[in-house]
C-alpha cells in the first residue's frame, strides 16, 4: 500500500551490536533508550498515518469501531473451542484485506506478540507435567516418577492432547485479540477513538487526560531522543556504570521538569482560550446506515461464533 510516511521510518535500522575483535559488546543503555524513544515516535507516526488512509474501515464511525473492539474482545475471551477461534481468525483476516493497511507489517507484529504471549509462555502447559492426560507424544522416559513436595514428575514426560488443546486455544485467543485490536487502531485516529469511550460512560475529563497524555508522550519522546543523542555525542569514552546512572537520573529529572513546564504552558494556553475547569465536548457525529449495518454484522458474527 502506498504511504506518505518518510522512507527512513519504514526501514528497519540495522542493529549495531558493536562487534569488536570477535567479542560482542552489549547495546549501551543510551542506545537502548534512544531506540525506545524512536520506536514510540514511529508507532505514533505509523498509527496516525494509517488512520488517515481511505479504506472501508477508515470511513466508519469511531464509535462503531470502539463497540466492535470491546464486543469482539469479549467474544474472543468467551469462545472456548478451536473451531470458533479459527472462524474469528478468518473473519479478522477478511477485515484486514478490506482495511487497506500494510498486511505483512501488521501480521509481523501480531506474530511476535502471539508467539511470545500465546505460545512461548504457555508452551510448557502442553506437557503432562502441567496438564495431566493421555500422552500423544512421548519426549523423555525416566526410571521412575518423582514427587517433590506438591509437584509430581511422571515417569514418561510428553505432550498430552488436553495440553496441546489448551495451548492452541490460548495461542488463537491472543492472535485474534491482538490482530483485531491492531486492525482497529490502524484504521482509526487515536483522539477520535478515545472520544468514543463515552459509549461506556467514561467522563469527558478522563478522555481529555488521555488525549493530552498521548500528545505529551509524543513531544516528550522526541525530547528524550534529542537529549540522548546530545548526551551520546558528548561521550567519547565509557563513563562507567556509576557515572552513567547519575547521568540518566539527571535526564529523568530534566524530563520531569520539561513535563511540568509543558503542563503549565498547556494550562495557560487553555485558560487563554476560555477554559475554567469545565470540558465542552464537541457535538457527536450521527451514525450512518452503513455504521448500523457494520454493528449488525459484528454482533451476528459474534453470537454465531459463540454458539458453534
Amino acid at each position, binding site marked *: 500500500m502506498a504511504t506518505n510516511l518518510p522512507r527512513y521510518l519504514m526501514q528497519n535500522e540495522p542493529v549495531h551490536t558493536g562487534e569488536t575483535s570477535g567479542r560482542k559488546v*552489549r547495546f549501551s*543503555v543510551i542506545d*537502548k*533508550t534512544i531506540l*525506545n*524513544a524512536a520506536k514510540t515516535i514511529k*508507532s*505514533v507516526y505509523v498509527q496516525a498515518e494509517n488512520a488517515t488512509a481511505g479504506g472501508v474501515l477508515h470511513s466508519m464511525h469511531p464509535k462503531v469501531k470502539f463497540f466492535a*473492539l470491546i464486543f469482539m*474482545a469479549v467474544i*474472543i*475471551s468467551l469462545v472456548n473451542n478451536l473451531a470458533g477461534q479459527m472462524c474469528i481468525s478468518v473473519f479478522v483476516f477478511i477485515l484486514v484485506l478490506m482495511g487497506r493497511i500494510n498486511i505483512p507489517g501488521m501480521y509481523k507484529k501480531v506474530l511476535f*506478540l502471539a508467539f511470545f*504471549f500465546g505460545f512461548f509462555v*504457555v508452551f510448557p*502447559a502442553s506437557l503432562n507435567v*502441567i*496438564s495431566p492426560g493421555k500422552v500423544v507424544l512421548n519426549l523423555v522416559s525416566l526410571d521412575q516418577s518423582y514427587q517433590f513436595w506438591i509437584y509430581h514428575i511422571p515417569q514418561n514426560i510428553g505432550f498430552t492432547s488436553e*495440553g496441546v*488443546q*489448551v495451548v492452541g486455544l*490460548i495461542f488463537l*485467543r*491472543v492472535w485474534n*485479540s*491482538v490482530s483485531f*485490536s*491492531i486492525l482497529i487502531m490502524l484504521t482509526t485516529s*487515536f483522539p477520535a*477513538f478515545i472520544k468514543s469511550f463515552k459509549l461506556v460512560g467514561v467522563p469527558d475529563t*478522563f478522555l*481529555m*487526560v*488521555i488525549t*493530552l*497524555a498521548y*500528545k*505529551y*508522550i509524543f513531544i516528550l*519522546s522526541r525530547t*528524550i531522543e534529542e537529549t540522548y543523542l546530545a548526551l551520546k555525542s558528548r561521550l567519547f569514552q565509557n563513563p562507567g*556504570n556509576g557515572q*552513567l*546512572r547519575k547521568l*540518566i*537520573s*539527571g535526564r*529523568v*529529572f530534566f*524530563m*520531569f521538569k520539561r*513535563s511540568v513546564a*509543558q*503542563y*503549565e504552558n*498547556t*494550562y495557560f494556553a*487553555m*485558560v487563554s482560550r476560555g477554559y*475554567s475547569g469545565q470540558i465542552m465536548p464537541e457535538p457527536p457525529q450521527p451514525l450512518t446506515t452503513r455504521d448500523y449495518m457494520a454493528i449488525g454484522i459484528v454482533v451476528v458474527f459474534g453470537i454465531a461464533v459463540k454458539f458453534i
Partner: protein
Amino acid sequence: MHIPDGYLSPQTYLPLMGVFVAVTAVAVKKVKLDFSARYIPYLGMAAAFSFIVMMFNLPIPGGTSGHAVGSAVIALLFGPWAAVVAVSVALIIQALVFGDGGITAIGANCFNMAIFMPFVAHYLFKLFSVNPKRKTKVFVAAFISGYFSLVLTAILTAVEFGIQPLIASDAEGKPLYCPYDLSVAIPVMAIEHLVLFGIVEGLITALIVRYFLKSDPGLIFALRIRKGMQHD
C-alpha cells in the same frame, strides 16, 4: 507484568474492571480537589511522564541493564491518587497503541500496576517516615518501596493467573484460560521478581528519588506530605 488477552476469565477481568473504574473515579475527584482547574493538564503530564519513565534504561550492578515499571516512582513523585490516574492512562495507551496488555485485561492490569502497586509503594515509603535530610535512609526507603511493591504486585498477578484453572475449566476439568495453577504461577512469578526485576525496580526508584532529593526535594510528594505540605 502486562497481562495479555486470553489468560483471564470473565469471572476475573469483569470484577477487576469494576474495581478499577470505581477507584479511578475517586482518584480523579481527589486530584481535582488539590489542583482545581489545573487537574486535567496535570494528570495528562503525570500520565505521559509515567509512560516515558519506562523508556529509561539504567545500568544495574552485575553487568545488566533494565527499565522500571515505574508505578512506585510515580507514586512517590506524584502521590498515590495521581499515580492511579497517571499509570492507568499510560497502561490504556500502551494496550491500544502498542499492544502491551490485552483489551479485556485493561482492568486487571490497571488494578495491579496502577492501583495496588502505587499504594503499596507509597505506604512502604511512609512506613519509614524518612527525614529528607538523611539521604541514605531516603535511598533505602525508596529502594524497599520499589522492590517490594513490584514483588507483591507480581505475586498478586500470579494469584490472578493461578486461580484460573480453579474457576474456569470445562466439564472434563481442562483449563480454559491460564493453564498454570497457584503452585506453578506463584513460585515462577515470585522468584523472577525477587531475584531480578524487583532489584531493577528498587534501584531505579531509589536512584531517581535520590537525584530529585539532591536537586529539588520539594518535587517529591512522599517527602512533602511528611512535612504536612499540600500539592504545589
